[in-house]
């Protein structure tokens, strides 16, 4: 332990280089993981806030964000009269291009019936829509486009008035725009249409039992948790490969930086280690020295990288609130494990060089 730490401390530039290398790799891993966790959290944000644990959807539809659902006429009535249903929240949703001061942005329109739920859960300013032609938009989207209360925005060629700004309603596919259901019906030219019914089971009735009890022609009932999972699978198809690839590259860069630094430090001291081996040090003692050097550099780098990631995540969210970064404790634990893995992998090549070192070389 002493020799490993002293060797590191003797070459401060090299130590700083390896710690920085690991720190940057860990920071990148944590930021990418944090961004992934953040968008996963965003994906579920509407479903988490709308009341109910069961969702009635058009037959065959399984997700909330990726597929349009139009329920058959009478579905809401059928659901409301099913024994064991305590509450029904009908929602009409539709993806649409919203024109904001000449710039177009994808949004998810949510039409809800005031008093029944399904509307914005946290208003930063303003009020909920009280009449047709009024909308509540996301606060971040409004800020980006310089939109304030009473401003007019164009949705599907119709002008609407912004009466409220909602918090926490940004999604990876765009922002939520809330309006009365009748407003959205008019926009999509589908009078009386509903996309989803969110059902709350009565006391003593489990969601699964209610699901089996519901029999609405042309519609399915699914658990809300299954719908969230389906949305996240959809998200995973879009994001996970890219994020996984970038995380793997960051990990590899970390391994290479530590590996190169420890290898160089080992080769430079080849003669010293040879003498140590000649005197009687076993290979495992030398491996331990190399591995400890890599571990110290890796752990210090992970600690620094975690601090950098938290700071960078905070700055990123402050600068661009639509990019959520949620660094969770489990992600930090994983990053620490990754740094240990980096250190172990990085120590392999120098350890091999140690094993091949012939003690007799020291006399030459």
């Amino acid at each position: 332990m002493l020799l490993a730490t002293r060797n590191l401390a003797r070459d401060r530039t090299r130590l700083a280089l390896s710690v920085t290398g690991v720190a940057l790799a860990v920071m990148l891993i944590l930021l990418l993981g944090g961004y992934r966790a953040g968008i996963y959290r965003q994906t579920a944000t509407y479903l988490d806030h709308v009341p109910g644990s069961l969702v009635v959807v058009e037959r065959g539809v399984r997700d909330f964000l990726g597929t349009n659902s139009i329920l058959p006429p009478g579905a809401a009535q059928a659901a409301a009269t099913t024994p064991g249903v305590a509450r029904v929240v009908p929602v009409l949703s539709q993806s649409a291009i919203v024109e904001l001061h000449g710039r177009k942005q994808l949004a998810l329109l949510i039409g809800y019936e005031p008093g029944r739920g399904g509307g914005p859960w946290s208003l930063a300013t303003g009020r909920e829509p009280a009449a047709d032609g009024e909308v509540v938009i996301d606060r971040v989207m409004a800020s980006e486009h310089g939109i304030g209360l009473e401003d007019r925005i164009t949705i599907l060629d119709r002008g609407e008035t912004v009466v409220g700004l909602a918090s926490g309603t940004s999604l990876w596919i765009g922002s939520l725009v809330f309006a009365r259901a009748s407003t959205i019906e008019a926009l999509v030219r589908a009078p009386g249409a509903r996309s989803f019914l969110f059902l709350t089971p009565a006391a003593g009735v489990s969601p699964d039992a209610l699901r089996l009890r519901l029999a609405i022609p042309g519609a399915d009932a699914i658990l809300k948790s299954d719908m969230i999972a389906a949305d996240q699978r959809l998200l995973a198809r879009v994001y996970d490969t890219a994020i996984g690839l970038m995380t793997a590259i960051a990990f590899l860069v970390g391994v290479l930086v530590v590996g190169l630094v420890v290898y160089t430090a080992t080769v430079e001291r080849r003669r010293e280690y040879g003498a140590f081996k000649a005197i009687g040090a076993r290979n495992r003692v030398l491996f331990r020295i190399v591995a400890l050097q890599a571990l110290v550099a890796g752990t210090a780098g992970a600690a620094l990288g975690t601090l950098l990631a938290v700071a960078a995540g905070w700055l990123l969210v402050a600068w661009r609130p639509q990019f959520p970064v949620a660094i969770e404790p489990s992600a930090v634990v994983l990053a620490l494990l990754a740094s240990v893995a980096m250190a172990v992998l990085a120590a392999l090549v120098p350890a091999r060089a140690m094993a091949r070192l012939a003690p007799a070389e020291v006399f030459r």
Partner: protein
Amino acid sequence: MTTCTLEARDVTKRYGDGEAAVVAVRGVSLRVEPGEIVLIMGPSGSGKTTLLSMLGALLRPTAGTVSLDGTVLSELSEGRLPDIRLHRFGFIFQDFNLLSALTVWENVAIVAELAGLRGRAARERATAILTELGLGARLDFLPDRLSGGEKQRVAIARALVNDPALILADEPTANLDSAIGHEIMRLLRGIAKEQGRSVVIVSHDQRIRDIADRVLWLEDGAFQDEIALAVDPVCGMSVERERAASATRDGALFYFCSRGCRAEFLNGPPSA
């Protein structure tokens, strides 16, 4: 410390195979008794270092045996050799080979720790030996702040810390000036004569002959007749008496490495 006898029998070391094979040591036999100082000399490339490596269980002979008190080292598995080297041998290297990141006492204590001594005990033993060797004021110095002589004394302390019966030294005075070289020689003599350890030294340094009990001349991988050796009084080289040019002055016979040295000697002032 338990005294022991090191013996090499018909030891040969060959590198490579077939026509490209090079025989570094051929059929050498040697026995080193407890408390004896054996100096192995010879020209560069004669096989001295290879022989020393085999005596110290750092290199396996191609043929023959190296044994320590009857235990044939060259037949032991690789896994057993580090312990033998750690407890039975002390190594002194030409370039000192101290661990540059550790202080003087740490360089010595770490070897005691390898042998199983822990923490304070290792430090105390290292400090005692270093103080005995005159390095009490240098305990916390890093090696790069020491003179060559001090580094070699640290190396000697490191070689002694596990109380070995045998010291193997490779050119221990090569990087030292004359005065420091003598001091190291005095130390090595004390190690043998006062502490009863065997010392095997490989060197080109003629001064070490003064402390050696036995001088062996290795050439082309084999020992030559040591009785036939003499020192050229002009250049100081060891020469074979039978083959060397010679001259008599003041009734004494002298041997020379070349006719040039002989002429220089004969044309110089008469000896006192």
